[in-house]
C-alpha cells in the first residue's frame, strides 16, 4: 500500500480514507487468516506463508491476503475466511491451501469438508455469520477483528477508523464528549463497572494543568484473553479511544500498561503507535486541531495485583507494585500525584463507536443499568471455546448452550465461574440469569473483566475454590494482613479439606475468616479474594460437608478421597488402561479382567480417562 503522508487536517484524513476505499474493490476476493495467539499456536502463520507462496506461484498476487486479529472461535483454529462472501473455513492446514486457492479463490466454490457443521443439527454452515457461534453474537468491540490487518493503519482507516476522533476534534467540545459517554451508559469493563463518563468528568474537573490517562491492559485472570485479543487484533481502536478520552479530559500524555507475557500485543501496539505518530494521529497538533497527545507503552512484569489501579500506577512510576489506600482516588491524585484517568482496554475500545454512532444507539443495547456489549472468554468444559461478544443481558444459558454449543461430552453442567479469581461460581440452576453487572452481583458473583469458565459434573467445587485461593495467595502483594495471611490460611484449610483431613468446624472457620478478609483488606484483590470460597459455600455446601464428614469427594477429583478399582464384571480386558498406567499398577492378560495394585497406584486417573467402557457399560474402572 502506498506510504501515507502526514495528515495535517481533518480533510486530509477523509481524503486518505476515500482513496483507500476507492482502491479497494468490495467485490474482490480476499483471504483473511486468523493470526491471534490461539491460531498462531495452531500454525496459522505457516498457513499464511503457504498462501502467499502459492498465490505468487499461480500469478494471483493481486488477491489480498491478511493476517488478522483473533476471530474468536479459537476451538476450531486455524480459521480462514474468504471475502467478500465470508466463506468460513475452520481447522485449515497447510495441505488445504492449494484446494482453497483453486476452488474458492478462483472459482468461488466452497469446500464442504472445511466448512463448519453444526454438531447438533448436522447443518453445514457456508458463511461465517451462519455459524451459531457467531450468529448470536453482537460485535462492537470486535468490529474489526478478523477484517483488518492490525499492523496496517491504512486498513483501520479504510474501515472508518479514526472517524470518531475526527468527529470529536472537529466539532465536539470536551464537555459534549463526556456528556455523550455519560448518556451512553458505558461502564468500566475492568470489573467494577464504574460509569466511565462520570470518571472522565471527575478527572476533567480537577484544577491541575497536567493530567494523565492510562489504559489498563494488565489482564491476569486465569483463562482470560479478551483484552489481549483486542490489543493484538485492533490496537488502533484502543489508541483512538484513548485519544478521544485524553481530549475530553484534558490530558496530553497516556500510558498503556500491558503484560510483557503478551508479546504480540506489545508488538502490535508498538507498531500502531509508530504508525499513528508518523501520520500525525498522535503527537503535536493532531489533525491540525491544536491538541497534543502521545502514548507510551509500559510493560508489566506479570504481577496480578498490578491490575489494581493504585498498584498499576506505582508500577508505572517504577516503584513496587503494591496498592495504596483510596482516597485519594487516581482521578484526584494519580500518576506522580497528578489527576489520572484509568480505564480498561475494552472500555477504551468502546469509545470510538459511541462517539461515531451516538449515545442513543449505544444506550439502546443491553439492560437497564448495563449498556452495550461485553466480551467474554468462554473456556472450561464447553464445546466452543473462544472469545465472544454479546449484548448485556444475554443469559448464561444462551452463552453456554447456543454460542458455546453446550457442555463438553454432553455432560451435566454444574456451575459457571464468572469474574476470574475474584468472582464466584454460579450454579446450574441459575443458568437463566441475564449477564449484567447487577444480576451477577445478585447471584453472588461479579462481572469481572469477562472470564467465563464452564464447569461440568466432574468438577469438585471445593477443589475449584482451593485452586483460585492458591492463585490469589501467590498473587497477594503482602502489604495488608488479611490478604497476606488470611488467604494463606484459607488455602491451608481448603487443602486440608481436599486432602481428606477436614475437621468439623472448618466450614465455620472458613466463613468467619472469609468475612474478615473481605471486610478488612486494603485493595480489591483482598476484598474479593474470599468470593470463590463464599459462593461455593453458599451453593455447594453439601460438597464441603461430604469432604469433611463422609471423607468423600462427590465429583471424584480429590485424590486423597478416591480409590480406583477395576470392576471385573465390566472389564473386557482390552489392556488400554494397562498401557496408559504410568506406574504399571495395572496388570492382567488380554480379554480377562485386569488387576489394579493399590500399593502402586498414584491416582493419576489415566486409566479412568482411557477406559472405553465408561460410556457403554458404565465405569469399568470406577471410583469409590
Amino acid at each position, binding site marked *: 500500500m502506498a506510504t501515507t503522508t502526514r495528515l495535517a487536517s481533518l480533510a486530509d484524513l477523509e481524503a486518505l480514507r476515500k482513496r483507500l476505499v476507492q482502491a479497494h474493490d468490495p467485490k474482490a476476493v480476499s483471504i483473511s487468516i486468523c493470526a491471534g495467539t490461539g491460531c498462531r499456536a495452531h500454525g496459522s502463520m505457516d498457513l499464511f506463508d503457504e498462501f502467499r507462496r502459492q498465490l505468487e506461484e499461480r500469478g494471483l498476487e493481486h488477491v489480498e491476503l491478511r493476517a488478522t486479529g483473533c476471530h474468536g472461535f479459537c476451538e476450531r483454529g486455524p480459521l480462514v475466511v474468504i471475502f467478500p462472501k465470508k466463506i468460513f473455513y475452520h481447522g485449515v492446514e497447510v495441505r488445504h491451501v492449494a484446494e482453497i486457492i483453486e476452488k474458492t479463490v478462483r472459482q468461488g466454490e466452497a469446500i464442504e469438508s472445511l466448512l463448519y457443521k453444526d454438531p447438533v443439527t448436522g447443518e453445514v454452515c457456508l458463511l461465517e455469520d451462519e455459524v451459531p457461534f457467531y450468529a448470536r453474537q453482537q460485535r462492537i468491540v470486535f468490529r474489526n477483528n478478523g477484517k483488518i490487518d492490525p499492523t496496517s493503519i491504512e486498513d483501520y482507516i479504510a474501515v472508518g477508523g479514526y472517524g470518531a476522533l475526527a468527529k470529536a476534534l472537529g466539532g465536539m467540545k470536551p464537555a459534549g464528549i463526556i456528556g455523550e459517554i455519560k448518556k451512553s451508559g458505558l461502564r468500566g469493563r475492568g470489573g467494577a463497572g464504574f460509569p466511565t463518563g462520570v470518571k472522565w468528568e471527575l478527572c476533567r474537573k480537577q484544577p491541575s494543568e497536567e493530567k494523565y490517562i492510562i489504559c489498563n491492559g494488565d489482564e491476569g485472570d486465569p483463562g482470560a484473553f479478551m483484552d489481549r485479543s483486542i490489543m493484538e487484533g485492533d490496537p488502533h481502536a484502543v489508541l483512538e479511544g484513548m485519544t478521544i478520552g485524553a481530549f475530553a479530559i484534558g490530558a496530553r500524555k497516556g500510558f498503556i500498561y500491558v503484560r510483557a507475557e503478551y508479546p504480540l500485543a506489545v508488538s502490535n501496539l508498538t507498531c500502531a503507535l509508530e504508525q499513528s505518530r508518523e501520520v500525525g494521529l498522535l503527537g503535536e497538533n493532531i489533525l491540525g486541531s491544536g491538541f497534543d497527545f502521545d502514548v507510551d507503552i509500559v510493560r508489566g512484569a506479570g*504481577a496480578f*495485583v498490578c491490575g489494581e489501579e493504585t498498584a498499576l500506577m506505582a508500577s508505572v512510576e517504577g516503584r*513496587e507494585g*503494591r496498592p*495504596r*489506600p483510596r*482516597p485519594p482516588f487516581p482521578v484526584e491524585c494519580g500518576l506522580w500525584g497528578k489527576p489520572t484517568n484509568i480505564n480498561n482496554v475494552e472500555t477504551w475500545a468502546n469509545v470510538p463507536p459511541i462517539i461515531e454512532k451516538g449515545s442513543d444507539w449505544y444506550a439502546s443495547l443491553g439492560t437497564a443499568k448495563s449498556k452495550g456489549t461485553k466480551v467474554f472468554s468462554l473456556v472450561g468444559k464447553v464445546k466452543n471455546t473462544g472469545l465472544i461478544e454479546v449484548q448485556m443481558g444475554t443469559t448464561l444459558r444462551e452463552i453456554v448452550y447456543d454460542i458455546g454449543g453446550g457442555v463438553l461430552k454432553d455432560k451435566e453442567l454444574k456451575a459457571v465461574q464468572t469474574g476470574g479469581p475474584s468472582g464466584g461460581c454460579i450454579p446450574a440452576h441459575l443458568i437463566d440469569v441475564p449477564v449484567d453487572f447487577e444480576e451477577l452481583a445478585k447471584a453472588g458473583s461479579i462481572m469481572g473483566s469477562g472470564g467465563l469458565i464452564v464447569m461440568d459434573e466432574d468438577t469438585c467445587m471445593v477443589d475449584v475454590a482451593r485452586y483460585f485461593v492458591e492463585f490469589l*495467595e*501467590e*498473587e*497477594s*502483594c*503482602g*502489604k*495488608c*494482613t*488479611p490478604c*497476606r*495471611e*488470611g*488467604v*494463606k*490460611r484459607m488455602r*491451608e484449610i481448603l487443602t486440608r479439606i481436599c486432602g481428606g483431613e477436614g475437621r468439623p468446624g472448618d466450614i465455620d*472457620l472458613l466463613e*468467619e*475468616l472469609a*468475612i*474478615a478478609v473481605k*471486610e*478488612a*483488606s*486494603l485493595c480489591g484483590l483482598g476484598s474479593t479474594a474470599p468470593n470463590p470460597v463464599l459462593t461455593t459455600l453458599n451453593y455447594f455446601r453439601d460438597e464441603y460437608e461430604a469432604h469433611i464428614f463422609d471423607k468423600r469427594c462427590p465429583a471424584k477429583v480429590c485424590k486423597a478421597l478416591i480409590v480406583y478399582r477395576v470392576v471385573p464384571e465390566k472389564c473386557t480386558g482390552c489392556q488400554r488402561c494397562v498401557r496408559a498406567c504410568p506406574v504399571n499398577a495395572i496388570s492382567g492378560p488380554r480379554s480377562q479382567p485386569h488387576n489394579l495394585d493399590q500399593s502402586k497406584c498414584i491416582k493419576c486417573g489415566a486409566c479412568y480417562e482411557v477406559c472405553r467402557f465408561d460410556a457403554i457399560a458404565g465405569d469399568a474402572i470406577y471410583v469409590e
Partner: protein
Amino acid sequence: MAADRVNIVIDGKRCSGLRGQTVLEVARDHGIDIPTLCHHEALTPAGSCRVCVVEVTLGKRTRTMASCVTPIEQGMKVVTDSEKIRSVRRMVVALLLARCRDLDVIKQAAKRVGLKKNPFPEEDGDCFLCGMCVRACSEIVGVGAIGFANRGPDSEVVSPFSVESSVCIGCGTCATICPARTFTLEKVFKRRSMHTTGGKRDIFRCTVCENHYTGA
C-alpha cells in the same frame, strides 16, 4: 477557620477535627482509643496491619475502613467497637499471631482484642511486616536503604537484592522504631555494631563530642 473544621460522630460522641485529619487521629484526640500495629505518629500511615478497622457510615453507605488512612468528612458516623469490628479485629490479630507467635507486641494485641484461642497453627516469625522501618528509613532518614522483597506471605524486609546496602548510614532508626525488635543494636567490645538485613556496620563513639558515628 471554621470551614476547616469537620464534625463527625465517633461511638455516639460528637467530635470535631481539622480537614485532612484521619479518623484515628480525631478519635485519639477525643480519648477514644483504637488499637494499631503499623501506625506511628512520625510516619505516613500505610494502612497495612488493618487492626484499626472501624465501621464508617457516610450517607447511606456503611463500610469497614482502616481508621489510620480514612480522612474525616463532614457528617461521618464512626463505630469503633461493634461486634462485627471486634470479630474482624480478632481475626486479623489471630492471623498475625499465627505468623509471629513469640512477639510481645502481637501477644499484647491479642490480649487487648480478646483473642483466647488461635484457630490457626502458629509459626515463629520475627517480623509481622508493619513496614515502619521501611517508611522511617525513607521518610525520616531519607535514604531508603531497605524495602520489601517477594510477595504475599513470603514478603520480607531486606536491602535491595539482599546485599549490604551502600546507602545505609547505620543510624539505627529502623531498630529504634521496630515494634517487634527485629532490628537490634548490639555492643561489640567497646564498639557497637548494627545488624541490618543489609549486613553489619560498626559504630564508633567520638571521644570528643561523645556522639555515635558509623564506620566506613
